[in-house]
């Protein structure tokens, strides 16, 4: 019975013993997780929800979070009146569902008290540095996706082959990004390479319908579901984040179109 009592006390202490942590420390750890969720392509309301939950679990009486696709702002007030506010700027986001999943489970464990705030950094480090599968498999994914979509939009098997070859080059470019290059310009370069590949392959007889080959590679480049996500954010009430995503999606689509147009013009001059 005595043992039980001690266990109950220690349970209470691990979760809500706020005197151990300062407000800044709690908010910093919560933002570490939130920032990484944003980097992996999480939605704004998921980030806001996560940070609010963690801070509340560690004794914040008032939490304000605002997340944009490139910025997270948060402020908390503890029960003893101390406050903290921090800002995180995020430059690069990509869709990485493995990391998103890991971050989500870390935040759930933190909220339930299964892992302490000190361990959060290690957990995040291991989540960021383990890979669910070898690198070359993502190139295989690009090939399968491009080929599949060429058939899905009405092409035959030869078109699928041509789209798969073009998809290979596009996903290799995705894999080995040039770091200094602007993201939008890189999209132009990618779509240029994809279109030139498609045009050359159709010119030399692999693939018969240029439309289907192009659409197969376009599917790799257009911002996935960014447009659908933007509409969802807008309807969900995250107006600012929705508008930013919408503009980004439209701009990326325009850049893809630009790369294709340049490629077609270039090809028309050479051949």
């Amino acid at each position, binding site marked *: 019975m005595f043992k039980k009592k001690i266990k109950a006390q220690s349970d209470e202490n691990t979760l809500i013993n706020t005197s151990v942590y300062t407000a800044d420390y709690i908010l910093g750890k919560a933002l570490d997780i939130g920032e990484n969720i944003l980097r992996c*392509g*999480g*939605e704004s309301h*998921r980030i806001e929800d996560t940070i609010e939950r963690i801070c509340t679990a560690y004794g914040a009486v008032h939490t304000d979070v605002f997340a944009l696709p490139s910025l997270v702002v948060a402020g908390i007030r503890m029960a003893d009146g101390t406050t903290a506010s921090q800002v995180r700027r995020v430059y690069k986001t990509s*869709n*990485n*569902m*493995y*990391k*998103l*999943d890991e971050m*989500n*489970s870390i935040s759930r464990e933190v909220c339930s008290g299964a892992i302490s705030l000190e361990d959060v950094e290690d957990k995040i480090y291991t989540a960021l540095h383990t890979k*669910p*599968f070898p690198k070359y*498999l*993502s190139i*295989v*994914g*690009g*090939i*399968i*996706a*491009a*080929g*599949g*979509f*060429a*058939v*899905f*939009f*009405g092409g035959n098997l030869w078109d*699928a082959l041509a789209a798969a070859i073009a998809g290979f080059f596009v*996903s290799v470019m995705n894999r080995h990004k040039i770091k200094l290059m602007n993201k939008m310009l890189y999209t132009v370069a990618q779509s240029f390479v994809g279109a030139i590949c498609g045009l050359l392959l159709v010119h030399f007889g692999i693939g018969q319908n240029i*439309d289907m080959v*192009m*659409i197969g590679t*376009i*599917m*790799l480049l*257009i911002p*996935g*579901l960014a*447009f*659908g*996500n*933007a*509409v*969802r954010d*807008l*309807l*969900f009430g995250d107006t600012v984040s929705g508008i930013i995503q919408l503009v980004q999606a439209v701009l990326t*689509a325009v850049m893809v*179109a630009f790369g*294709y*147009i340049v490629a*077609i013009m270039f090809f028309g001059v050479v051949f």
Partner: protein
Amino acid sequence: MEEIIIKIIAGTIATLGFAILFRLKPSHWAFAVLDGLLACVCYFAFTELFGGNFLPNLLAAFVASVFADFFARICKAPSTVFILPGCIALVPGGTLYYAMSNLLSENRDIAVEYFLTTLTVGIGIGGGIIAASLLRVTIQAISKKIKHKKS
């Protein structure tokens, strides 16, 4: 009919490709592919039934998101993990390409039409996803109330 079946298979394979591109855990691939298959089947079925662009995409995205929520519950993962690859086959890449190529050959009216179709499909997909998440929120709220009353 045969053509549609081939298209559904191709769409499902493409979904697998995107599941890898989005870096899903290998243990989640099967569910993502199943979700993509559902989205494709729903899309073609509703296109036969209703025609047009908006309604089939809205309903297919809705069904795919509802099942994505369900799979997420099974795997204890966020629902985005399954919504993203599940709805990818609905993304209007084809109409976007035709809009561009028509713009290039100066068929402006056709280009604008294709562009508006792209927009309609995008709004349809977004609407479907939001409808599914509204459904989830409602179910959660109701079940919470029932639990509260019981206790």
